[in-house]
């Protein structure tokens, strides 16, 4: 992160609490990149892996995770230079929200080093530090996993919706009627979704689309019936649909059972990031990764366990058209270190 002698890690750690100066963005999105459908006419999903992501230790190496992110992004956008994809994705003046997931606590939340890497590349693409907002629903949950509150000028912003609030009015679609985070509606005009790859005891899996539950005031209302059609309906809300540019799924550590809370016995190190602009294709692909791990561990399929992620096909149906769940129309590109 270009910050006058400050390392990426130090940069976020030095963020200090101050008066909230997050700027109201209020701009309509300018879709700078539409790489979702590749040259083959299929939705592209890139899975980048690095078996040595942690070196000989247990923590993710920040240099290798930046490299992993670069490979994923360059592959997805067919770019030669690490900054190039980001320049296709955002433009100076954008206010970019990084919607992370911190519900699972330290063991199973969006990786801090990965988010630092994204912030670094966004700034290299011309986004000012203070125009990047790392956010989730709860500031304390974020703090517990290493995303420390930051609202100071000239720093990347890091804050939960609990400190900013929800819109008073309801946004509605289908079965969803919810108040949206003001970080989404008022303070950002671009959203990059940075979820994690994990099992969910009700929904089957929670990856890209379900991470939007952290955007609304009443996620508990959206859990019946395996979250179907709530996940799909929620992702149809204009404020979400129009601002969502990209999903960068953190699959460095994932979970195949017992989610969404962290249970170490069911977590594994996939050491991957998964990138797509089609959230349905990404969720379908992530689901298959979890199923393979479950099979390896001699567990039932999610279907046999009574919790198939039906919402994925709902999101692809004629009423929603949020992407495709047809494997014949998904181009999975795997890149390795």
């Amino acid at each position, binding site marked *: 992160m270009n910050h006058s002698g400050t390392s990426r890690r130090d940069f976020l750690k030095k963020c200090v609490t101050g008066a909230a100066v997050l700027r109201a963005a209020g701009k309509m999105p300018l879709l700078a990149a539409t790489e979702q459908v590749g040259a083959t006419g299929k939705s592209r999903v890139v899975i980048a892996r690095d078996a040595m992501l942690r070196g000989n230790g247990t923590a993710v190496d920040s240099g290798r995770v930046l490299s992993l992110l670069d490979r994923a992004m360059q592959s997805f956008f067919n770019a030669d230079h690490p900054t190039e994809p980001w320049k296709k994705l955002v433009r100076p003046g954008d206010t970019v929200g990084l919607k992370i997931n911190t519900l699972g606590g330290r063991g199973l939340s969006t990786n801090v080093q990965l988010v630092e890497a994204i912030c670094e590349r966004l700034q290299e693409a011309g986004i000012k530090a203070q125009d990047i907002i790392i956010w989730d629903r709860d500031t304390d949950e974020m703090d517990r996993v290493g995303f420390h509150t930051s609202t100071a000028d000239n720093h990347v912003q890091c804050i939960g919706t609990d400190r900013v609030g929800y819109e008073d009015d*309801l946004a509605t679609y289908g079965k969803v*009627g919810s108040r949206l985070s003001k970080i989404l509606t008022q303070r950002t005009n671009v959203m990059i979704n940075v979820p994690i790859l994990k099992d969910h*005891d*009700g929904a089957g899996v929670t990856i890209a689309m379900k991470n939007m539950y952290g955007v609304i005031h*009443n996620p*508990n*209302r959206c859990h019946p019936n395996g979250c179907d059609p709530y996940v799909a309906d929620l992702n149809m809300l204009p404020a979400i649909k129009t601002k969502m540019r990209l999903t960068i799924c953190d699959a460095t550590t994932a979970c195949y059972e017992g989610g*969404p*809370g962290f*249970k170490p016995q069911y977590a594994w190190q996939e050491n991957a990031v998964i990138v797509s602009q089609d959230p349905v294709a990404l969720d379908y692909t992530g689901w298959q990764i979890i199923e393979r791990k479950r099979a390896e561990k001699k567990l039932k399929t999610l279907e046999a366990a009574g919790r198939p992620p039906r919402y994925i096909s709902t999101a692809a149906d004629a009423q929603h058209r949020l992407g495709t769940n047809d494997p014949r129309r998904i181009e999975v590109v795997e890149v390795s270190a």
Partner: protein
Amino acid sequence: MNANLPAASATEGRSSVLQHGHTLLASALDRRSFLKCALASGAVLSACDLARSLVAIPSSADPQKQDDSQFTVEAKFFQKLENKKIKCKLCPRECTVGDKERGYCGVRENHGGTYYSLVHSRVCAAHVDPIEKKPLFHYLPGTLAFSLATAGCNVNCKFCQNWDISQVRPEQVPAQYAPPSLVADLAKRNGCPTIAYTYSEPVVFSEYLMDAADAGHQAGIRSVVVSNGYIQEEALKTAYGKMDAVKIDLKAFSESYYKDVVAGELKPVLDTLVTLRKMGKWTEIVYLVVPTLNDSDAEFRGLAHWVKTNLGSDVPLHFTQFHPEYLLKNLPITPVPTLERAKAIADAEGLHYVYIGNVPGHPAENTYCPKCRRIVVERVGMMAKQMLIRKGSCPFCGQQIPGLWHA
């Protein structure tokens, strides 16, 4: 969930207690009731005074600065499962909840395999209301009820009037710390012979309701609950067993309506009504009539027949007027003739006490003796204007009128 009452929402003056908006017309009340009402009215604190009472204990109007730990108690009705999951046994929804997650109600959370209520003593709305506003028409008419709510509900009625407290998580609304002893004390100081658990859905704050009822009873204060009745039998017997009277919102008489409009089920609510009857609890029923959705003759007739057959002819049934709110803003206010049609059908089925609500000044707000047909309790809006019942009987013909008429 409370009935759709447009006259005064739960969130008016939230976090304080509003003085009721009308003066009891004491001149026509009997002497005993008059004195009680006069004392009660005189004892009502101003909103400021009462707000001061509530904030005497550390509290915060800022939802983000609330100390969650002071509101968190272990839930009473749940079952532990493998992998730190729990199954909630409070309401028929029976949410299976993973670690760190909440149930559908949004006010109960799994911490490491144990389920906790997050709303004990976490009051987000408190008012002094006439008991007629609940509405309870056969229970201490002309008196005041110290009425309170926490955030949360276990259904999601599309017409909810109080959705901004019922459909949110507790940390999303300002709240004050009001432990049971304070509630009992405030009720007493405000001349309220009852504490009413209302506005949101008391099922979801059962632990608090039980403790507040115990504190109230020790201080000589009764408890009444305004509920959707969507609760499991054991929890019903344990929690509402501590109540002195119950008002149940029966949202419709069809499962499809419950599924589509309420996000609940009809049968468990009917079971609740039958159980309350067996428990001997004074119960009144409200049916919010929503144009085109639950206003057919067949449904009114089916409802009235079921009430008569299973609960008896003396259970008061209130047909109340719908006003567009929340997710049902596309429908009109219920026409008064529709309400009158509902009443006529229920009368014809043989129910003795059928009321029309939310229509101030309508003659069907009054209680009539089922034998001589004369007015025995006259009401205007949510206020008792004249209470003529003597020793539980009609003063004109001696017919017994069921209910609790005097403290």
